[in-house]
C-alpha cells in the first residue's frame, strides 16, 4: 500500500502537481490508510475472539477499579447461582439418574394399571401368572426379566455381624443379563438355578458386601443364612449397579411354581418386569401390544383382571416417575429460578447505575469510531466476566450446599441410596446459568448505555439531567419486575410452608408420645403354624409388660397412621360384587390391648378381650369412617362383615365395636374405612410390637431387645424406634423441604429489598438537581418526600399487582401437584402484599426523606 501511494504520488508529480498536492490527492483517493490496513489484516485473523479477549482484560481492569460495585455484583450473582446449582444437584441425581448395564435407554419396565389405585396407579406390580403369559406371547422384546423387589429377610448373625433384617429381591435368572450388567466378582445366576433345590444361591449388592463382609473377596463360595436357610454366595455386583428407588441388598433366584400361575394366585401382584426392546421397536408398539395382552387377560380371567391394564414405560422414565419426587423438585427449581432472576435484576440495576457514570467514556469511544455494536459487546463482556466470577464463587458456595443436602437427605433408605453431588451435569448447568445471568443482567443496561447522546455527554451535561427518560423507565421496570417476582415467590413459599406445617401438626387420631415400637418378622420355618404364632404373641406380650416402666404392650400388623393392607370386604345383607369391584377397607390385625396402648378411643360397643380367641366367634372392630362409608351412619354394632384375605375360607365376623378414626398415613389427609381383627383369631407373621410407657422410651430399648432375645435368639428386631420417630421417618423430607423453601424465600426477599432500595435511592440521587429546582420554586420538604413516595408506590403497586396475578393459580397448582395436601389460604395474599408494601415504603421513604432535606442551593450547584 505504501508503494501504491508512492507510485501515485510520482505519477501526479509527473503530471505537474506539486509534491504536497500530489500527496494529499493520493491519500484522499486511497482512503483511510490505517483503517484499510486494519481491515486487510482482519481478513486473516479471528477478530471477534481477539477483541473479546481484549475486552475481557479491559473489563477486569475496570472492575478492579470499583471494588464496591464488583464485590456486590459478584456476591449477588454468586448467591443466585449457588442456590440454583445446589438444587440442580438434586435434579441431576433424581431426575437424570445414572443407569446400569448396557444401553439402559432401550429397557422398558412393564407394570399393571390398577383401576382403583390412588398413588401411582399405573406403576403397580405384575402377577407371576401375567409375567409367564406375557413372556411367552410378546413379540416386541428381545428378552424379559422379572423382579420381586420387596422381600424382607433376616440374615443370621455369624459371630462378627449381628442378625439383621435386609430387603432383598428375587429375580429371574436372566435378570442381570437382560440389563447387560456383569457382577464385579463371581458370576451371575445360571439357567436352572430357579428350580427348587438349586435356587439357594445369592448375589450380594456392593453396599452389603462392603458393609457386612468388609469387601472380602473370599466371601464368594461362602454360605450365608437367610431366613433360616443356607444360601451360597456366587457373586457380588459392582457399585454402579443401582436402580433409583430400589434398595435391595442382595438377589436370589425367583422360583415360580405351577401354583403361581394358577387363576387363584392371579391377585398376587408382586413383580416388576424389565424388558429389552428389539431393534427398531417403538414404545408405542410395545404399549399397543401390552394393551392387547391386558384385554386378553381381562377376558380370560374377569374375576381378578377386570379393569386392570398393562403399562410400559422406558426405564429412565419409570424410575423417575415411581420415585415420586419430580413435582417437589420442579417447584424448587422454579423458586430458585425466581431467586436468580431477582439477583440478575439487582445486578442489572447496578450495571445501569454504573453505565450512567461512564457516559463520558462511552461517548468518547463512539466519537472515535467505535460502532454501537462494538460498545454493546464490550459492555456484555464486562457482564460476562462478572457472571463467570459470580459463577465460580457460586459453585464454591454450592459445594457447601450439596454437603448440607447430603447430610439431610436421609429420611428413608431409597433417598439415602442416591448420591447427590456436584457432578458434570451440575457443573455444565452452573456454566449455563452464569452465561444466562450475564445476558439477563447486562443486555438491557448495555443497550441503553450505548445509545447515548454523544454531544451532550461529551459536554458533561448528561449527568445533571435525570439520566434520560428511557433509563428511568428501565429502572422502574426493574423495580416493578423484582417486586412482582418476589411477591409470587413469597406467596408460593408461604402456601407450601403452611400446607406442610398443617399436615405435620394435624391430629392423627392416636397418641404418639411415649410409645416404643419395633418390627418383627416371624419366619415360616419356625412359626409356620398358627399355634406357634399365638404362642409367641402370648409370650412376648407377657415379657414386655413385665418390663419396669411399661404400662402395657400390644402388637399390630401395622402401626397406626403408617398405611396398612387393603382388603376387599363384604357386608352381610348387601349384594355380592365381583372380586375386582368389591369395596375395600384397611385391614389391621391387633392384639387385645391395642386400643389402650395406641390411645385410640372406643366410640360404641366394646373392644377385644382375651375371650376373643381361636375357636370363639370371629369378631372385628371398625372405625367411624367405615360406619360412615358403608352403613351411612346407621348402627354397625352387631352387623356382620367378611374380610377377604385370599388364603383360607371366607369367614363372617361380627362387628362388636366402633373406634375413632386414625389417619391412614401421617402424611395425608385421608381417613380410610378400617377393620381391626383380633390377633388371637387371625395371627400373622409380620407385625410391630408397641409398648406404652410412662418413662422416656429410649431407655426401654435394651430391655425390649432382651425380651425378644429370650423368646427367640435368632429373631432380629427391625426399626426399633419411638412412634414419634416413625412418624418423622414418614415425613419424606418435609422438614427439609420447609427449610429449603424458607431459606429461598428469605433470600429472595432480602435480595429484592436490597435491589429495590438501591435502585430507588440511586434514582432519587440522580434527581438532586430537579429536587433543588422544586425546592427553590417553593416546594416543601414534605412535598418532595410525598412525591417520591407516591412515584415509588405507583411502580410498586403495578409490580405487586402483576405478582399477585401470577400467584393466583398457585393453590390449585399445588393441590394438583401434591395430592393429599390442601393448600390455599386467602389470608396469605394480603399478608404477603402488606409485607412487600412495607419493604417498598421503607425503601422509598429513606431516600425520599434525604431528598427532602436537601439544601436547594447545593442541589442546584451539584453536577
Amino acid at each position, binding site marked *: *500500500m505504501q*508503494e*501504491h501511494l*508512492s*507510485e*501515485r504520488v*510520482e505519477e501526479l508529480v509527473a503530471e505537474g502537481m506539486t509534491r504536497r498536492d500530489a500527496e494529499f490527492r493520493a491519500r484522499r*483517493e*486511497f*482512503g*483511510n*490508510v490505517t483503517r*484499510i*490496513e486494519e*481491515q*486487510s*489484516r*482482519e*481478513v*486473516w485473523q479471528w477478530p471477534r475472539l481477539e477483541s473479546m479477549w481484549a475486552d475481557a482484560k479491559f473489563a477486569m481492569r475496570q472492575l478492579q477499579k470499583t471494588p464496591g460495585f464488583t464485590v456486590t455484583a459478584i456476591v449477588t450473582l454468586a448467591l443466585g447461582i449457588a442456590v440454583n446449582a445446589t438444587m440442580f444437584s438434586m435434579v441431576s441425581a433424581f431426575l437424570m439418574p445414572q443407569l446400569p448395564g448396557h444401553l439402559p435407554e432401550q429397557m422398558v419396565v412393564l407394570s399393571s394399571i390398577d383401576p382403583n389405585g390412588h398413588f401411582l396407579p399405573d406403576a403397580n406390580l405384575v402377577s407371576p401368572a401375567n409375567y409367564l403369559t406375557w413372556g411367552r406371547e410378546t413379540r416386541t422384546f428381545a428378552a424379559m426379566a422379572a423382579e420381586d423387589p420387596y422381600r424382607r429377610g433376616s440374615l443370621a448373625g455369624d459371630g462378627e455381624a449381628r442378625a439383621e433384617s435386609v430387603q432383598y429381591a428375587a429375580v429371574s435368572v436372566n435378570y442381570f443379563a437382560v440389563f447387560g450388567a456383569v457382577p464385579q466378582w463371581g458370576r451371575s445366576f445360571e439357567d436352572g438355578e430357579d428350580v427348587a433345590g438349586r435356587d439357594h444361591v445369592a448375589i450380594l449388592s456392593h453396599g452389603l458386601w462392603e458393609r457386612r463382609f468388609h469387601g472380602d473377596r473370599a466371601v464368594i463360595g461362602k454360605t450365608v443364612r437367610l431366613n433360616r436357610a443356607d444360601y451360597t454366595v456366587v457373586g457380588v455386583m459392582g457399585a454402579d449397579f443401582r436402580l433409583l428407588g430400589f434398595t435391595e441388598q442382595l438377589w436370589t433366584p425367583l422360583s415360580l411354581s405351577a401354583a403361581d400361575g394358577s387363576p387363584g394366585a392371579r391377585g398376587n401382584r408382586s413383580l416388576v418386569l424389565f424388558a429389552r426392546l428389539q431393534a427398531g421397536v417403538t414404545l408405542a408398539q410395545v404399549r399397543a401390544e401390552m394393551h392387547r395382552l391386558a384385554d386378553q387377560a381381562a377376558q380370560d380371567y374377569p374375576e381378578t383382571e377386570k379393569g386392570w391394564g398393562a403399562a410400559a414405560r422406558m426405564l429412565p422414565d419409570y424410575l423417575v416417575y415411581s420415585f415420586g419426587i419430580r413435582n417437589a423438585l420442579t417447584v424448587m427449581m422454579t423458586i430458585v429460578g425466581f431467586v436468580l432472576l431477582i439477583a440478575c435484576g439487582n445486578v442489572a440495576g447496578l450495571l445501569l447505575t454504573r453505565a450512567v457514570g461512564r457516559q463520558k467514556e462511552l461517548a468518547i469511544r463512539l466519537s472515535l469510531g467505535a460502532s454501537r455494536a462494538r460498545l454493546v459487546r464490550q459492555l456484555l463482556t464486562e457482564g460476562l466476566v462478572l457472571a463467570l466470577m459470580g459463577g465460580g464463587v457460586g459453585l464454591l458456595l454450592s459445594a457447601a450446599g450439596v454437603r448440607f443436602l447430603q447430610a439431610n437427605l436421609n429420611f428413608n433408605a431409597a433417598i439415602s441410596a442416591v448420591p447427590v453431588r456436584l457432578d458434570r451435569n451440575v457443573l455444565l448447568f452452573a456454566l449455563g446459568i452464569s452465561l444466562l445471568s450475564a445476558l439477563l443482567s447486562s443486555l438491557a443496561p448495555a443497550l441503553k448505555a450505548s445509545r447515548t447522546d454523544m454531544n451532550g455527554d461529551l459536554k458533561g451535561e448528561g449527568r445533571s439531567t435525570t439520566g434520560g427518560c428511557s433509563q428511568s423507565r428501565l429502572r422502574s421496570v426493574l423495580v416493578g419486575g423484582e417486586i412482582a417476582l418476589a411477591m409470587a415467590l413469597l406467596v408460593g413459599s408461604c402456601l407450601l410452608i403452611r400446607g406442610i406445617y398443617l399436615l405435620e401438626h394435624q391430629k392423627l387420631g392416636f397418641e404418639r408420645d411415649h410409645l416404643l415400637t419395633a418390627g418383627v418378622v416371624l419366619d415360616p420355618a419356625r412359626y409356620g403354624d398358627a399355634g406357634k404364632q399365638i404362642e409367641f404373641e402370648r409370650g412376648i406380650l407377657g415379657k414386655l409388660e413385665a418390663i419396669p416402666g411399661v404400662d402395657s404392650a400390644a402388637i399390630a400388623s401395622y402401626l397406626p397412621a403408617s398405611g396398612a393392607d387393603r382388603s376387599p370386604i363384604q357386608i352381610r345383607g348387601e349384594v355380592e360384587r365381583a372380586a375386582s369391584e368389591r369395596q375395600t377397607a384397611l385391614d389391621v390385625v391387633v392384639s387385645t390391648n391395642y386400643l389402650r396402648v395406641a390411645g385410640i378411643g372406643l366410640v360404641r360397643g366394646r373392644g377385644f378381650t382375651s375371650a376373643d380367641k381361636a375357636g370363639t366367634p370371629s369378631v372385628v372392630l371398625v372405625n367411624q369412617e367405615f360406619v360412615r362409608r358403608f352403613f351411612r351412619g346407621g348402627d354397625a354394632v352387631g352387623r356382620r362383615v367378611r374380610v377377604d384375605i385370599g388364603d383360607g375360607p371366607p369367614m363372617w365376623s361380627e362387628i362388636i365395636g366402633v373406634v375413632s378414626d386414625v389417619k391412614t398415613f401421617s402424611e395425608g389427609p385421608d381417613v380410610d374405612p378400617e377393620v381391626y381383627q383380633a390377633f388371637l383369631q387371625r395371627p400373622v407373621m409380620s407385625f410391630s410390637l408397641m409398648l406404652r410407657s410412662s418413662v422416656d422410651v429410649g431407655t426401654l430399648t435394651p430391655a425390649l431387645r432382651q425380651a425378644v432375645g429370650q423368646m427367640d435368639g435368632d429373631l432380629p428386631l427391625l426399626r426399633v424406634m419411638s412412634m414419634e420417630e416413625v412418624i418423622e421417618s414418614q415425613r419424606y423430607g418435609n422438614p427439609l423441604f420447609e427449610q429449603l423453601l424458607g431459606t429461598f424465600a428469605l433470600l429472595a426477599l432480602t435480595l429484592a429489598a436490597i435491589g429495590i432500595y438501591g435502585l430507588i435511592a440511586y434514582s432519587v440521587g440522580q434527581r438532586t438537581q430537579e429536587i433543588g429546582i422544586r425546592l427553590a420554586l417553593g416546594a416543601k420538604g414534605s412535598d418532595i418526600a410525598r412525591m417520591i413516595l407516591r412515584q415509588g408506590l405507583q411502580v410498586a403497586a403495578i409490580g405487586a399487582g402483576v405478582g399477585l396475578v401470577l400467584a393466583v393459580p398457585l393453590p390449585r397448582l399445588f393441590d394438583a401437584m401434591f395430592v393429599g395436601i390442601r393448600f390455599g389460604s386467602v389470608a396469605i395474599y394480603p399478608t404477603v402484599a402488606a409485607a412487600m408494601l412495607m419493604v417498598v415504603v421503607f425503601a422509598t421513604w429513606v431516600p425520599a426523606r434525604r431528598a427532602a432535606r436537601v439544601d436547594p442551593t447545593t442541589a442546584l450547584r451539584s453536577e
Partner: protein
Amino acid sequence: MGNKDGYRDLFPGALELMILQTLYRKPMHGYALAQHIKAVSDELLQIEEGSLYPALQRMLKAGWLESEMGVSARNRPVRIYKVTAAGGKRLEAEISSFEKMFAGITRVLGTA
C-alpha cells in the same frame, strides 16, 4: 460488517469480479490494478483505491488468488497477484450470474 464506502452504487461482488477479470488477463500489483480499473472504466467508476486491499486479502484467503513477490515500476518490492485455477472458475461463474442479473434488470426496465 465492513463499510465499502466507495461502492455505494455497486452490487456486492462487483469489486471481486473486476479484480478477477483484470488479474486474469495479466497479473499485477495493487497500484497497477487500481489504475487499470480506473482507466478502463473511463473514470465512470469512482472507487476508493484502498478498498482493493482488503478485497485482495479476502480473495487470497478464499484461494481465488495467489501472490508472489515482484518488482514495481520503480524497482521497489511489491506483491504481484495472480488468479488461480479456482479463481478462474469463480470468475466464469460470476460472469455468468452477472450477465443473468443484467439481463433480468434490462427486461424489467423494458429496454431491449
